[in-house]
């Protein structure tokens, strides 16, 4: 199986099938990340669409040795940040998180939906800086050093945000938290 970076190199070289493969590989997780933060599924879908368009436009910036995933997620996070700034609103509880109303997303099982909704609400209650870090670390599976690079903060600052965010979410979900509040 080709790596992300090999696929990107192939796409730059004119292999359009490589772009489809990158989409298949990364769009599910990007959609999930976006839908945990945006109320309207169509906005999440639109931001994922914009992210891949921006990936296409940025392709000539991609250099050998660079990692694609931090690239892609930084683009997505920047677009999401701008979405909230333009709309003049804060991230909201994911009321339409269940995928039933969005034709762009395949339906999921009922139990999965309930658990996802609870977590989604707990996530939505976090301050924005913590939510951004938790979204990338927990939902997208991005290691903290990469998260730090994506949000433009130091690793130690990102670690503090993550610890506090997880503790607040555990408390919200009825699990053990720790003494450090948010």
């Amino acid at each position, binding site marked *: 199986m080709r790596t992300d970076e090999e696929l990107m190199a192939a796409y730059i070289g004119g292999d359009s099938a490589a772009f489809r493969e990158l989409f298949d590989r990364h769009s599910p997780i990007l959609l999930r990340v976006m839908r945990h933060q945006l109320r309207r599924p169509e906005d999440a879908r639109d931001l994922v669409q914009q992210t891949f368009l921006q990936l296409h436009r940025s392709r000539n910036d991609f250099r050998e040795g660079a990692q694609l995933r931090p690239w892609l997620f930084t683009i997505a996070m920047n677009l999401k940040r701008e979405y909230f700034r333009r709309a003049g609103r804060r991230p909201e509880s994911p009321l339409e998180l269940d995928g039933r109303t969005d034709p762009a997303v395949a339906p999921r099982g009922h139990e999965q939906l309930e658990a996802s909704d609870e*977590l989604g609400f707990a996530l939505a209650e976090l301050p924005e800086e913590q939510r951004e870090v938790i979204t990338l670390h927990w939902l997208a599976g991005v290691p903290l050093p990469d998260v730090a690079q994506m949000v433009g903060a130091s690793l130690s600052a990102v670690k503090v945000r993550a610890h506090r965010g997880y503790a607040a979410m555990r408390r919200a979900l009825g699990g053990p938290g720790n003494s450090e509040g948010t």
Partner: protein
Amino acid sequence: MNRMPGVAELDCVDVREALFAGRPLSAAEAEHAASCPICSQGLPGGDALSPSAELFSAIESDVRGETGLVARLRSLPTPVRLVVAIVITTFLAVGTTLVRPRWAFGPLPVERVTLVLVALGVLVWVIVWLALRPLQAAPPSRRLVLGSVAAGLLVPVLFAVTPPNAEHAGLDAPGMAKGVVLCFLFGALPGALFVLALRVLDRTAHRTADAALLAAVGGGLAGNAALEMHCPSVAPMHLLLGHATIGLALVLAYRAIRTRTTARD
């Protein structure tokens, strides 16, 4: 970090990082993972959403539409886009100078003109660098962006109110109103062209508010640079109204245009 008595010793961060590193969980980490409502939800990707073919078709359609000169300019590597922006700025300043060159340097020493041009040039460079920053890079700090905007608006004001030669300060007072309007228009034109150039080079076409704001402020600086090589006046009121206001006017005008465009979309 301090933990409360009776609370799991490890945090979700530790568990996640262990999983990312591919190492097996320790006993304490496994204990936390079993009792934690977050970690028990599974590994990243476990409940990933499946996008439809329709979404990819929409992206494919976007990508197919990326043809023509504008698309080619936006897809250039970032260092090349920066150079193109600087070349365009230089061309605008030199072009306006050739159209209507400054007819006298008398009241202003060459050193002062050089100082103004260098200061404006440095600010334009910083603003272009910030405005064309690619989306795959972490965003610049708000302090840097707002500081650059403030400097871009205030430096022309500073030069306006500190004329080098006080005895020439009221030089063109009788025809001031006409001179102010002419200079404003003469500087606003290259300024607006500068904004347009940055919009063409910006990969989001100024959908990001900061890039649009920076472009407008940069347009004011480009206009002031052009005027520096055109207008010999050192009257503070003329410089303040006819030169230094171009940046603010472009910011307000561009903001209004973008608001109307966004509302229409």
